């Protein structure tokens, strides 16, 4: 548990953080968000004492952070930053193992742990452990950065705009990855972002800051549905209905999908289903290859690229909607890791979800 009580930070005459109090419960993700200069990053950096508070108290599991040696404190807190900060002269394995090296864990154990973490973040250790940072893509480097933060298995993670420098497509993948990891690892996370969609999607609670003060600390749904004042209303924007869809993972809205093997597609006849029904066509390995569409002369198969149309159970409903609109279809397939269809998300469900609030 991370607890702030009346924490203030001055830079000369400027008050960057003004008497902030909040609490992040164990295993929860708390997202700090706000316009630039609102003090969110300063707030984060005071937790691992990259900056020291001018007054007030920050405690982790009841212990005041100012009582601990800064280096010792930092080795017990995972830290992920936007620029990643992998050491360019060390390979991936040494980069991941660096915190344990500082903690004098022996080499064999460190390397075993590094391989474990590469597996965990979905990169093949054989292929990646000896690469150098300049050989990695932005998304890969960011994952390695997360792996490094997790190496010493700290209970707490601080993430400072970790996906800010990654392109939007990769960002969504990394967010999904983060949700998957968080579900398995249950860390206590303080997360800074300026991207509202990201905050809504990843946060258990969201803290909206302005001029060093907390404006609203609430669940993502409440922030969108019940903005406390005009500032919050402006910040979440007119499209808050759309943004709200980011709160919901697809997994709660999966419907059974009708699917058929590629070789049988030609002989398929409509089994009397309503206009919403889509029939997915799978090829070898049961992986999605297309969909069946009615045409004047019966049915034909339209080829689809799984990565362009499909979502995964941890994707947000907003993502599902954008796929729906982008592809001009009535349902999106929900895919597992091997691109097999495990269900679908339908437009009426999204509409219903949206009407529930407004």
């Amino acid at each position, binding site marked *: 548990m991370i607890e702030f009580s009346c924490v203030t930070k001055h830079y000369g005459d400027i008050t960057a953080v003004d008497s902030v109090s909040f609490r992040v419960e164990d295993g929860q993700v708390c997202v700090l968000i706000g316009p630039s200069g609102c003090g969110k990053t300063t707030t984060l950096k005071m937790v*691992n004492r*990259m900056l020291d508070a001018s007054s007030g108290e920050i405690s982790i599991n009841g212990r005041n952070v100012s009582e601990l040696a800064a*280096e*010792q*404190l*930092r*080795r*017990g807190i995972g*830290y992920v*930053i936007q*620029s*990643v*900060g*992998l*050491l*360019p*002269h060390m390979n991936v394995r040494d980069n991941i193992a*660096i*915190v344990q090296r*500082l903690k004098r864990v022996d080499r064999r154990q460190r390397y075993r742990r590094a391989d474990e973490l590469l597996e965990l973040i979905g990169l093949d250790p054989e292929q990646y452990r000896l690469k*150098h*940072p*300049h050989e990695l893509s932005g998304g890969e480097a960011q994952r390695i950065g997360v792996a*490094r*933060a997790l190496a010493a298995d700290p209970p707490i993670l601080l993430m400072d705009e970790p996906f800010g420098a990654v392109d939007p497509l990769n960002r969504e993948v990394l967010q999904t990855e983060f949700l998957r990891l968080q579900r398995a690892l249950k860390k206590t996370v303080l997360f800074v972002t300026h991207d509202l969609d990201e905050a809504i999607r990843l946060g258990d609670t969201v803290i909206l800051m302005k001029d060093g003060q907390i404006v609203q600390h609430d669940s993502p749904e409440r922030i969108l549905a019940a903005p406390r004042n005009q500032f919050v209303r402006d910040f979440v924007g007119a499209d808050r209905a759309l943004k709200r869809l980011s709160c919901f993972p697809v997994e709660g809205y999966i419907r059974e999908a009708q699917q058929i093997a590629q070789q049988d597609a030609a002989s398929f006849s409509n089994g009397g289903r309503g206009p919403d029904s889509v029939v997915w066509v799978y090829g070898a390995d049961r992986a999605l290859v297309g969909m069946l569409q009615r045409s004047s002369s019966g049915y034909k198969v339209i080829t689809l690229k799984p990565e362009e149309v499909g979502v995964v159970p941890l994707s947000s409903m907003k993502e599902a909607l954008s796929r729906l609109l982008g592809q001009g279809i009535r349902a999106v397939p929900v895919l597992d890791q091997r691109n097999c269809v495990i269900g679908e998300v339908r437009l009426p469900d999204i509409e219903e979800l949206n009407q529930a609030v407004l």
Partner: protein
Amino acid sequence: MKRLIVPPLLFGLAFVVLLNAELLEPLLRTLFPNVREILYARIPLIDLFREHVMMVLVSSVTATVIGVSLGVIVTRPPGRDFLTVVQGLSSFAQTFPPVAVLALAVPAVGFGFRPTIIALVAYSVLPILNNTIAGMEAIPRELTEASRGIGMTPLQVLFLSELPLSARVIAAGIRTSVIINVGTATIGAVVGAGGLGVVIVAGLVRDNIAFVFSGAAAAAVLALAFDWLFGRLETLFFAPRARVSR
């Protein structure tokens, strides 16, 4: 492979010929048929060569220690105030001709090896210091931030991230200094420090081109050999690898 074998062979051959009186004599006779006293008889060239290498090594090691430590100190937060002062001083030291430094050092520490080392060090700290500062300043701030953030102590940040990251630039400075020192060390002869300068000075005094040639050639080959060696070390330690990638 060729680059690993051919240069050392050439350097070895050149040293054997230059430092061995029996082999050097016929060479000098063909080159300078009109010179009567063809070999410097008082001290064998190989002894002068040894003194010369000694001067270069002692001064370069000293200059490296001073240059790198100063460079590190003035790039730390407490030392940052001295950055411009130190840079100014070392540039000033390099504008001084080494002979002038000798002239000032002799009254203070006497004749011989010591004033020469002082002159050489004063003259060769600059490239090392400048490169150390440049190397340190070129490290992206986020990288040292990240190093601190994962729990490195200031010393660990220095030895695990900053020095390895600037090593290539610092090494280039050391290389320059050593090469400069090989040439400048010849002035040591003026104050009795020995070295290859002895033959060159004797040659100049007696108008004997064979003496000048043998000293100058040995110093030149030594400089080339050091340069090659540093080149090899660089490719060995800083294998094909991007310096700083984001």
